């Protein structure tokens, strides 16, 4: 049997960046190994784009509201997908570790929980871009809508929805840690709870008055209202952007705190080594 003594003394760096990169690399390997996974990422946003794009084309000639801003529904569906994919990208990345029974290996390694959070965010960003970019690019040849005309406002909308998706995803991921795969359904459906009240396709003024406080407690509401302000009134509402950022800070801190709390509970109850199918 071959000797196991290494040629050179082992060097162990205490580098958060290297550990986060290790986790990102693990997911890049996973995506690279499976074309169906990559296809699935882009499939639903493109599918939604087609439905809402054709509906918009129809309503352009039948609705004065839509006719005022041709791309409003398509922009809305793409921005909603940013939020949805950001949330899903984070939670599914964590689910991948549970499905492969790898969580135990990760949590006995030097990877800290906060580094896990950072890695999940990076991977969620990559998955969101892979998901939404093809649909955004297709909107031009198919419907003549170039969402990038929104310019800097688009970047502000994108990052605010991305961060909100992370915050919700971290909370859901915490639940997965605590409750195991029994909570998997929340990953796929949880974010839809806010869809009716956050004004994706219609202004908040269309909702009953009593729902308004709930709507305005969501960062995404400020983004969708801000989007409509840009498209209908041609103004960028800084007040709405600031509202979204402020709420997102609160959401992200709460999401990360929930994840760390549930991690602590899982470590207390011996769930870290038991997760899996």
């Amino acid at each position: 049997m071959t000797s196991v003594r290494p040629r050179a003394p082992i060097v162990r760096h205490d580098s958060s960046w290297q550990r986060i990169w290790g986790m990102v690399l693990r997911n890049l390997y996973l995506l690279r190994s499976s074309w169906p996974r990559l296809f699935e990422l882009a499939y639903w946003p493109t599918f939604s784009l087609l439905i809402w794009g054709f509906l918009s084309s129809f309503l352009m000639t039948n609705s004065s509201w839509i006719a005022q801003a041709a791309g409003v529904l398509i922009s809305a569906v793409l921005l909603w997908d940013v939020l949805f994919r950001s949330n899903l990208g984070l939670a599914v990345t964590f689910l991948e570790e549970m499905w492969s029974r790898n969580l135990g290996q990760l949590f006995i390694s030097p990877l800290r929980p906060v580094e896990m959070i950072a890695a999940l965010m990076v991977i969620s960003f990559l998955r969101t871009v892979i998901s939404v970019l093809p649909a955004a690019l297709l909107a031009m040849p198919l419907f003549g809508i170039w969402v990038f005309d929104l310019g800097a406002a688009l970047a502000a909308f994108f990052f605010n929805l991305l961060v909100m998706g992370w915050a919700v995803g971290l909370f859901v991921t915490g639940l997965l840690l605590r409750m195991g795969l029994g909570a998997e359904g929340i990953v796929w459906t949880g974010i839809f709870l806010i869809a009716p009240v956050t004004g994706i396709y219609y202004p908040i003024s269309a909702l009953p008055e009593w729902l308004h406080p709930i709507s305005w407690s969501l960062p995404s509401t400020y983004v969708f209202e801000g989007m409509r302000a840009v498209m209908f009134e041609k103004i960028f509402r800084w007040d709405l952007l600031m509202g979204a950022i402020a709420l997102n800070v609160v959401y992200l801190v709460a999401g990360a705190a929930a994840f760390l709390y549930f991690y602590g509970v899982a470590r207390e109850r011996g769930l870290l080594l038991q997760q899996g199918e």
Partner: protein
Amino acid sequence: MRSAPVDPGGPAIAVANLVKRFDAVVAVDDISFSVARGSVTALLGGNGAGKTTTLAMLLGALKPTSGEIAVLGVDMRADRYAVIPKLNFSSPYVALPGRLTIAQNLTVFAHLYGLDRIKERIERIAEALELTDLLKTPVGKLSAGQKTRAGLAKALINEPELLLLDEPTASLDPDTADWIRSYFETYTRDTGATLLLASHHMGEVERLCDHVLMMRRGVIADRGSPRELIMKYGRANLEEVFLDIAREGSARRQMAAQ
């Protein structure tokens, strides 16, 4: 972050008054033991004796209810991340991602353990574990024996000073299991590493281990070298000692019930 004091000359593991409760169930009940550096120690006991719970606490994956754990001289409660880079763990019950190749898995874990010269290290470990031809094979496509060796390669990627093993040869054919045991002998001889293994295979323990901790219902029922325990119980081998200790517990429970 504050670093816990390091005692380089002390035992590899020092456990004092360790307790783990899950609600009303006491899984580990006030155990104390130490494991000498460079030794190979077995943690034995029947199902539910508390072996895996103890291993999980030593790895930092499970928080003790009370008690103290020092690993390689570092207080695990104060700063477990100061010592975790020097530990590793292998178990057939904790998998590697099946869609990634062995090389990809090892690369990921090499990054998590903060290693450099990763490619060179993977090539050497693969050579030692006879995995070179399988490096580009997804773990999910490996046989049970190959998966065990891949898991072992992951456990050795950081050249751990303390290696914890949970039933390392479970579900392996006798030839593969023998190969794995020989590898542990080579590894400890070449690196001076400390091994703590939970096992149900008494022949394996007699062959590999300097010291045995016998657990029963959350406590350490007895301890000593395999030879000492065999002589103490007047038995022919460790398996009979194991049965004596396990059945003594059953008999006591029956008497108490009567």
